[in-house]
């Protein structure tokens, strides 16, 4: 169980997260949505430890992790897929997966992992993780690096951002699979109906506060209507 207790986060005199209280259960698939600037990404980063809250507390399985580093949280089983996958010079796809798994790993094991995210060519393993890979490819590899850790909490920050519609369609398949097979908690930040449809629970953020939280069945149509209104 992951508990956020009274989390506040302010930057440049703007309240990004304003007294957030949230309790998330193991084995559930959550989708966090809301307008741009509502605090979704910051919330995800605070769970991973990439940002420190100004006040409040985070409990993971009853343990206070508020002041633990990113590495320590990763070792406890929390994992995070970056919205903009990080590029490296000289580090290959295979290198990254080896680091992610943390054990000796064969090329076959790595290929198996990549297959799950729709990459089947062995040639990818030895490519550098740089901008010669397309946005969609980098996203898939980023997701593979998270899945390979079999995390207890897997956070995906806008998996749809920066990729074309074709790539996105096949990405939703990965999340569909994840929703049905994952033994841990999944948190996806998304604006996409296809992803929202997979959720057990939805969380709607607005201006740094939780506007609504509940079952997908109750919330989805309402949220989609609101999005349409906002669009008009």
């Amino acid at each position, binding site marked *: 169980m992951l508990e956020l207790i009274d989390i506040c986060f302010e930057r440049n005199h703007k309240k990004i997260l304003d007294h957030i209280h949230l309790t998330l259960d193991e084995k559930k698939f959550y989708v966090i949505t809301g307008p741009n600037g509502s605090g979704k990404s910051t919330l995800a980063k605070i769970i991973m430890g990439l940002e420190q809250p100004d006040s409040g507390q985070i409990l993971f399985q009853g343990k206070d992790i508020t002041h633990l580093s990113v590495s320590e949280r990763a070792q406890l089983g929390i994992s995070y897929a970056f919205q903009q996958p990080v590029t*490296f010079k*000289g580090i290959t796809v295979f290198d990254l997966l080896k680091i992610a798994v943390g054990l000796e790993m064969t090329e076959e094991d790595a290929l198996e992992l990549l297959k799950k995210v729709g990459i089947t060519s062995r040639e990818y393993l030895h490519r550098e993780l740089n901008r010669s890979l397309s946005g969609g490819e980098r996203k898939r590899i980023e997701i593979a690096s998270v899945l390979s850790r079999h995390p207890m909490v897997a956070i995906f920050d806008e998996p749809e951002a920066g990729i074309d519609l074709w790539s996105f369609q096949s990405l939703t398949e990965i999340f569909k699979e994840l929703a049905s097979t994952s033994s841990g908690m999944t948190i996806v930040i998304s604006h996409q109906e296809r992803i929202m449809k997979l959720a057990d629970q939805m969380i709607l953020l607005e201006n740094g506060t939780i506007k609504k939280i509940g079952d997908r069945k109750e919330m989805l149509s309402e949220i989609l209507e609101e999005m349409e209104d906002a669009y008009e």
Partner: protein
Amino acid sequence: MNDVDKKLLNQIMEEDVTKEEVYNIRKNGACIARKENPYIRITNKENGRGIDVTVKENTLFGTVHIPVLLTESGLVDVVENDFHIGANSNVIIVSGCGVHNQHGKDSIHDGIHRFYLGENAKVKYVEKHYGEGRGTGKKILNPITEIYMEKGSSMNIETVQIDGVDLAKRLTKAQLQEDTTLTITEKIKTSGKQQADTDFVVELLGEHASCHVTSRSVATENSYQEFRSNIIGETVSYAHVECDAILKDQGSVKAIPEIYAKHVDANLIHEAAIGKIAGEQLMKLMSLGLSEKEAEEKIIEGFLK
């Protein structure tokens, strides 16, 4: 050869050199072992300061190892080696300098390597530098490489200098004729108070000559590095210079680009980026369970791979 020699040799050469087909091992200014074959000859220069390596025309898959060992503190070794690569040959040349300085005097190795590539010759040249020993004497290297490339030839140079050398001044000069390609990759890591300078002067003289320089370096502690490149495009030609440096601690790096296009179709590009390890790279690897220090090591290891 004693144990120190063997250890040094192993540090600079990955394989057992004495099992190779062609080699020349120089220790403290004199040749201590040599082997030739019918296609690749090694002869002493008349002034005694180096060797001539002559590769016959059409020699394929030739490999030449020419390690240099410096184990006497206070020795100034000056070596002049010339490589004459016959037309249509394809050879690999591995050179390297291992310095073991256990005493208080400076060990200095000044080497000039000149490469004369015949038409359509292909050369891969690998240069490694390694210094060890607890003496206060400095380990100083000043390698100069001169390259003359005839029509259709290509050369690939890899230089690696990972720690251990106190002061290195490296100068590479090249003249490229028609349809030639020169690729240079250098990797340098300095620490302590080490200083490493590299200087490239490449003249693209013939049509469709091209040059690619990639420099990746890491400057840690109080070390200092300087990278200069000067590419001159006299005609229809192409050059791409990429200088990337990572800084740690109080390390500093200066990159001085100079490109001079003398022809409307000379296409010359210089890119340079210097900075500390990107925070997001550290964060990504930490989010995969590495500590900050481990993440830093992985990033540097990959960068210099």
